[in-house]
């Protein structure tokens, strides 16, 4: 019944199957939205955060999806500025993933502040010394850029495109895309960096603090580095999942390989930088504050296994898989590498968000533990449901993958 809206020459599942699938995710999203309303009504006492854990699951999710969404600006940069032609097949989808990640981050941030109605104060009374101010400005602007990048794709829907205004608009947007990609790259570099900077400047929290390069702490650069090396792996991963679900090849394998290879080399660089950073932190920053490396880890939840899993299992191993051609060209290995790399960056953000606060600062204090409440889990789950809905709608009705038709010729 929705045939007329589906791009020409491609195969889509029946309306019944599609709407049942959508109903499932709408149900999850509905439940999550009800939880969000409960939180807006009753306040942040619905979470398990407290005066030790001012940051919890939501900030981890925020930082995580923003890092994973880096695939959008970085692929845009590679496609339009560096002109890596293989990525043309992937760029639309990368933009959609970025759009999902950033819009969810903004929504969760609104929920995560104690006074959501005052959210606009960030623009009105900005403290230019605060990294969070920079984050607020850059994320908002970059989200606008992503929307501008997404709109022409929506306008290309078969029905909408028939309208002459939409047609002209879409054309003009396309012409200007390189400029938006460049602006987006610039903005993203800064907010990825300032998100890292948020932790690195907390000089009275030795777990997160990193001395500065001029006004920037090292975490500023480490966050950019980790985002541009793992964001693309997430784009590859979601593309592979979509191919699996739709049982179709949507982008040429070469496109995935090229992006994965670039991510792999960047990840190698990041792993080295992170190792050097960790070494310097353990041997210089901590001792200057009377602390040892061992004191930064505790028990099971905050154990010494964390840096090994983060840097080794989720850093070195995927980096190797991605740079070794034979492994990268194998779908199973590629998927494994992408899962590990994406997990690694989320783990890194969790460590900075939660462990930084769990670590006792007073010599006479103790470690505290934090586990999110069901309300926090539910609203975090909303990101997945929301993502599934946007991706499903975009895939069904928009010409997201320019090579889909060639890669899936109609059966004779």
């Amino acid at each position: 019944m929705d045939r007329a809206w589906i791009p020409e020459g491609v195969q889509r599942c029946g309306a019944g199957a599609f709407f049942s699938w959508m109903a499932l995710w709408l149900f999850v999203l509905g439940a999550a939205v009800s939880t969000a309303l409960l939180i807006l009504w009753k306040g942040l006492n619905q979470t398990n955060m407290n005066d030790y854990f001012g940051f919890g699951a939501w900030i981890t999710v925020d930082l995580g999806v923003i890092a994973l969404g880096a695939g959008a600006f970085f692929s845009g940069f590679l496609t339009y500025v560096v002109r890596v032609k293989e990525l043309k097949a992937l760029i639309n989808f990368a933009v959609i993933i970025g759009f999902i990640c950033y819009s969810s981050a903004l929504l969760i941030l609104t929920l995560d502040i104690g006074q959501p109605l005052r959210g606009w104060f960030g623009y009105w009374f900005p403290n230019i010394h605060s990294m969070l101010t920079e984050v607020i400005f850059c994320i908002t602007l970059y989200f606008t850029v992503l929307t501008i990048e997404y709109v022409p794709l929506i306008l290309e829907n078969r029905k909408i495109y028939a309208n002459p205004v939409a047609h002209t608009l879409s054309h003009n947007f396309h012409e200007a895309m390189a400029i938006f990609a460049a602006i987006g790259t610039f903005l993203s570099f800064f907010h990825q960096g300032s998100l890292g900077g948020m932790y690195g400047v907390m000089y009275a929290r030795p777990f997160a603090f990193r001395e500065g390069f001029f006004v920037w702490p090292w975490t500023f650069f480490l966050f950019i580095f980790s985002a541009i090396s793992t964001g693309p792996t997430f784009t590859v991963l979601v593309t592979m999942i979509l191919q699996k679900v739709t049982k179709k090849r949507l982008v040429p394998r070469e496109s995935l390989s090229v992006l994965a290879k670039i991510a792999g080399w960047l990840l190698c660089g990041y792993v080295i930088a992170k190792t050097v950073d960790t070494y310097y932190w353990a041997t210089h920053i901590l001792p200057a504050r009377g602390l040892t490396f061992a004191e930064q880890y505790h028990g099971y939840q905050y154990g010494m296994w964390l840096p090994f899993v983060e840097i080794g299992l989720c850093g070195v191993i995927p980096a190797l898989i991605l740079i070794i051609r034979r492994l990268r060209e194998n779908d199973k290995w590629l998927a494994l590498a992408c899962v590990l790399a994406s997990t690694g960056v989320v783990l890194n953000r969790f460590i900075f968000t939660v462990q930084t606060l769990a670590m006792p600062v007073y010599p006479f204090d103790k470690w505290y533990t934090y586990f999110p409440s069901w309300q926090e889990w539910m609203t975090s789950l909303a990101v997945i449901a929301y993502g599934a809905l946007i991706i499903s709608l975009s895939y069904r009705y928009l010409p997201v993958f320019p090579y889909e038709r060639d890669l899936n010729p109609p059966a004779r």
Partner: protein
Amino acid sequence: MSEHHEVASKEKYGMVIDLDKCTGCGTCTVACLSENNHYVREDESDKLHSVTWMKVYKVTNGAPFPNTKVAFIPRPCMHCDHHTPCVSVCPVMATDYNPLTGIVSQIYTRCIGCRYCVGACPYHARYFNWWDPVWPEGMHKLLNPDMSPRMRGVVEKCSFCNHRQQKAKDKAYVEGRKELKDGEYVTACAEACPTGAITFGNMKDPESAVAKLIKSPGAFRLLEKLGTEPKVYYLSSESWIRELADNALGRKRTGGLA
């Protein structure tokens, strides 16, 4: 990192707490609660959700009986002087360092409740209002009219009873004076402490009691190595307490908190 711009000012307020005198009675906490219009929840057992601007830590030397020693460390906001951790991070300038007095204050109606300052403050001196304040029937008559109550969703902390400074200044103005005398402006906790363990005043006035006390041989500050330069000093003749005040490389954490 830049320090606050030093301005020509004759005032910088600070506090000295003599731990040898402190008995841990908690009067300072109660005085603070009542002076600053704190509400008390029906169940205050979860201390990670309690608002206690003046919190008293109980610490021990970790030695087994009969050598166990106990001390109490009252902890207000330190009014950090160097690149104040909470002030520099606040995205909306809801918390402020006053270069004329050194007091770190909080604008409740400006705070968006992002809690970045809570993360940045190493002294755990900042408290988020997880609930709307509720006072028992009739108790509103006892509220201090000089202090605004705080709404749900904002962060608050010890202000060195800033409103008392305003009052003292108003009085001095009426009497035709520009400067405050030592002891004219003191915090509620300093006023209430039954053992006189807390002294408060202008550290820039060489004749003030605080200015003299901070020069005592046993004076120290909490977590000095972090470089926040607290304006709250402690005094103790016990070396184990002084050692417990800051991190020392490789020292076994004794679990000092009792």
